């Protein structure tokens, strides 16, 4: 009973947050809905015994990424009305058509494979705890190569961002 409550409370908040992201008109409300979704997802991670992932989720997504989103929204201004007319002709039909095709494909696969309709969320192996030690142990031994590749990718992205933002004219003025 208690576990059920602990699952359904964040899960329902998550769905409400996701609905706010889609349907709210004000960009700041959208952003806060996304924050709600991310935080309730973090709580679900904790119930699944993945504390490290939960904390990183809070720190990186809810803490850093969404704060920057909000910052940008506030800087640009939210007074403008949301654009509701189609910029591409018939985009609503296009999107719903693609959506229907994808869903029927998914349904076809689900019906014809050995997918069992056990909708109960899986039992957690509470012996294994998502501690930082465990994650670091696998990340820095088995997965060290992909890890390093990702770090190079991130550095390249950072350097590219600096190169794009860097204005050589301003620097010449200073010198």
């Amino acid at each position, binding site marked *: 009973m208690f576990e059920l409550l602990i699952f359904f409370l964040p899960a329902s908040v998550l769905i409400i947050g996701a609905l706010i992201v889609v349907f709210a008109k*004000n960009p*700041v*409300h959208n952003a*806060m809905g996304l*924050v709600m979704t991310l*935080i309730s997802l973090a709580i679900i991670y904790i119930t699944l015994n993945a*504390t*490290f992932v939960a*904390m*990183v989720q*809070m*720190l990186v997504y*809810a*803490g*850093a990424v969404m*704060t*920057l989103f*909000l*910052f940008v929204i*506030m*800087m640009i201004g*939210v007074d403008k009305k949301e654009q509701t007319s189609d910029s591409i002709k018939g985009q609503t039909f296009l999107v719903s058509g693609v959506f229907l095709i994808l869903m029927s494909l998914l349904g076809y696969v689900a019906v014809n494979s050995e997918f069992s309709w056990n909708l109960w969320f899986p039992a957690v192996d509470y012996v294994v*705890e998502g*501690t*930082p030690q465990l994650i670091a142990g696998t990340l820095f031994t088995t997965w060290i190569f992909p890890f390093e590749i990702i770090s190079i990718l991130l550095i390249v992205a950072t350097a590219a961002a600096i190169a794009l933002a860097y204005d050589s004219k301003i620097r010449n003025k200073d010198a």
Partner: protein
Amino acid sequence: MSTELIVALIKANIVLGVLLTNTILLIWFERKLVAGMQSRVGPDRAGPFGILQTVADAIKLMLKEQILPLKADRAMYLLAPIVALVPSFLIFMIIPLGPNLNIEFGGENYIVEFVGADLNVGVLYFLALSSIAVYSVVLAGWSSGSKYPLLGGVRASAQMISYEAAMGLALVPVILYSGSLSLVDIVDSQSGNLSSSIPILNSIVSFIPKWNVFPQFVAFGIFFIAAVAEVNRAPFDLVEAEQELVGGFHTEYSGFRFAMFFLAEYINMFNMCAITATFFLGGWLGPTFENFLPPFLSSIMPIIWLGVKTFSLLFIFVWIRATLPRLRYDQLMELGWKRLIPASLVWLILSAVVLGLREFGLPWS
């Protein structure tokens, strides 16, 4: 109801009570201290030495009218003070207040950890929650529908994001030294005294407790500066610079909602000092005088030690506020990004090298 649940409920209530009472004390402490430093008397009407002044202020704020600005975004305007208050209470949960307690109740022995929650990701939890606290300032500034709060909110978010990076980086060498992300383990790793392999040095050094502040003094400095900036205190209080922005992000708030922001600010300040004490000054560690003092007194000595350390740091907070002028905005950003972050990165590499040498010896030997 299981015992664990009851213990958790009791802990939560104790944390609530301690933090609220403590804030009352803290505000009085700050006002008296600043008054002393500026040759004023400070609050002296309500109660002995004016100690009840804060209680009077709190009651006044609760009875005042709540004003909702016409152009405010209602939902976000009401949400912001709550977002400010909740993380500040949650952060206190992970601060260890003392060693495990043995309680005999109904003929059974219970071992109660003297900490709200001992998380194996405590440091990350602290950083995550302090980054959630940024939302309150941003939302309050934006939703008020007025220019001063908006400027205050934009300033605050830029400042808090910048200094969070330096704060997190300054904590990494401490984690390396302690070998754990849990605050309880970090405190445990600081017990005992320093030792040195050189005999003469060892005899001098062995009187000094093994606190992280001695090997990690640079990280301590960076963390403390970043902590002052993170809670938006002077000299980093551009967020609420009275001379330029009236009240900053909470200009449009009144009554109890303003009190919630005020409360959150002081609880955050207290948390930061308690966390600094835990990371660098040995937390609750200290002599308990088991032989001289009655058992009850010696069992609460850890809390007293933590309180003494925290309030010494708070004294420095107030001292800084009364002494230093406010930084300009560009100076603030430069200090964060060009000084503190590079310094903490260099210090991180240095301490990693030292630890590696200590653990594995020289690479050629």
